[in-house]
């Protein structure tokens, strides 16, 4: 700069000064902008990443909520109609726990601005490897129903039964329901992006598998066997 100043003549001196002043002004404005920006950001409104529309997180929350709600329906039937204390208690446990979990998942969906259930009526698209490796044969005939879900006829049959028949059929349907939901939970526990989603999915997997063991035992005690 100094060399330029001396080298060139009168005007360049002014230009150089102007350039410096301008540069300083620009820096000052930028600084001011940064300061203002800082003030605006103060409240700490950091919106933690919202999962994308096709994310595992949203897909899992939507599908597992639907899956859970049918479990709640079956548990409600058993709790209303069974006369066995152990069954009624198990039914209440399943109903209250799953309803609470549905509340969590729907709360997330609301915050993420996502619909409560998949809009095109398909399920489990978010599981890229899908469940082909698992129980594809038994799921094939179940149009629109996720693995483990009971059909309308099965639900009607459950409502029509009473006594030990009701208890056994409830246990059988619920065991299959738990087992059917497991691959979804397993997939989400591994691939969901939001930690709290992975935590819940992993917890479902563990608690439902031990609950499944318990139901197997209750089925055996009643001289029956799990559904094929």
């Amino acid at each position, binding site marked *: 700069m100094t060399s330029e*100043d*001396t080298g060139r*003549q*009168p*005007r360049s*001196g*002014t230009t150089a*000064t102007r350039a410096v*002043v301008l540069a*300083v*002004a620009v820096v*000052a404005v930028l*600084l*001011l902008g*940064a*300061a*203002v920006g*800082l*003030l605006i950001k*103060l409240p*700490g409104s950091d919106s933690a990443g919202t999962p994308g529309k096709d994310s595992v997180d949203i897909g899992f929350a939507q599908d597992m909520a639907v899956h859970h709600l049918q479990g709640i329906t079956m548990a409600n039937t058993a*709790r209303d109609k069974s006369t066995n*204390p*152990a069954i*009624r*208690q*198990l039914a*209440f*446990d399943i109903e*209250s*726990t*799953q*309803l*609470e*979990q549905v509340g*969590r998942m729907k709360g997330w969906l609301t915050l993420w601005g996502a619909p409560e259930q998949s809009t095109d009526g398909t399920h489990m698209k978010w599981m890229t490897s899908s469940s082909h490796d698992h129980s594809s044969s038994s799921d094939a005939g179940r149009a629109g129903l996720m693995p483990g879900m009971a059909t309308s006829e099965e639900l009607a049959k459950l409502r029509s039964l009473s006594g030990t028949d009701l208890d056994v059929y409830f246990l059988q349907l619920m065991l299959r329901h738990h087992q059917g939901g497991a691959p979804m939970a397993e997939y989400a526990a591994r691939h969901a992006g939001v*930690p*709290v989603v992975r*935590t*819940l999915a992993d*917890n*479902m997997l*563990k*608690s439902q598998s*031990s*609950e499944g*063991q*318990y139901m*197997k*035992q209750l089925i*055996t005690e009643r001289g029956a066997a799990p559904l094929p």
Partner: protein
Amino acid sequence: MTSGKKTKATRSSVAAARSSVVANKPKPWGTIVAVIAVLALAVTVFGYAYSQISDKNQREAALAKWNPSEENKDPSDQIQGVVKKEYKAGKHVQPTQRVGYDQSPPFGGPHDGAWANCTGIAYPKAVRTENMVHSLEHGAVWIAYNPDQISGEPLDKLTKKAEGQQYTMISPYPGLDKPISLQAWGHQLKVENADDERIDQFIQSLRRNQYTYPEIGAACDSTTFDVDNPPPFVTDAPGADAVPMDGGVEDQAETGGTPPATDAAPPVTQPSS
């Protein structure tokens, strides 16, 4: 301001003359002052923001210390004296059975199918342990106290921490080796008095901590447990026919119904519950 104006005027009027001789002539004081003013403003704003943020961070850090999060899954690790053990969840026994627990009071292991109501209940009398343990599995904190050592004001203080507080329950525990013992699933802390600050820290760290209890979302309301007339605590040690710590319905299913070795022993007379 005036100086700035003046300089500007001077500058423009002398523009021509300046060019030739004035290499190190009057500095642009106005500009310098303006720049300093802007810098001072920026420093003030940055300084204010910094103090706000650091204050906020400090407050949040203080709160976060006992608040479970992805970064701090088990805040009770920072509490001195907490005992931790891993237990397998979901193993049930019958209302007539007892469990040979490995701890007193226990904080995990097989339990009765009916969980004790833990919707913020102060149990005036000691409750059957097998029911209380199940509530821990649902995310509750159980405050147990030795009725011979805790009463009056300390008991009032403890009761306030449980009564009306969801997922919390308090009950006397006869024969407790310390005045107070707090239980959460897989966690225990024994303390000497009700003023111990670790009591609140334990509750904040572990009550419904999604990373430490086995059944996220499970209820404290209980339809099969009579909260007004709960099954009573049994003082005598469990007999030889008690369900072992690795027992419970689920294990029997896994071993194909082979009876545990203890079942072969002659039944010891057990106090009827």
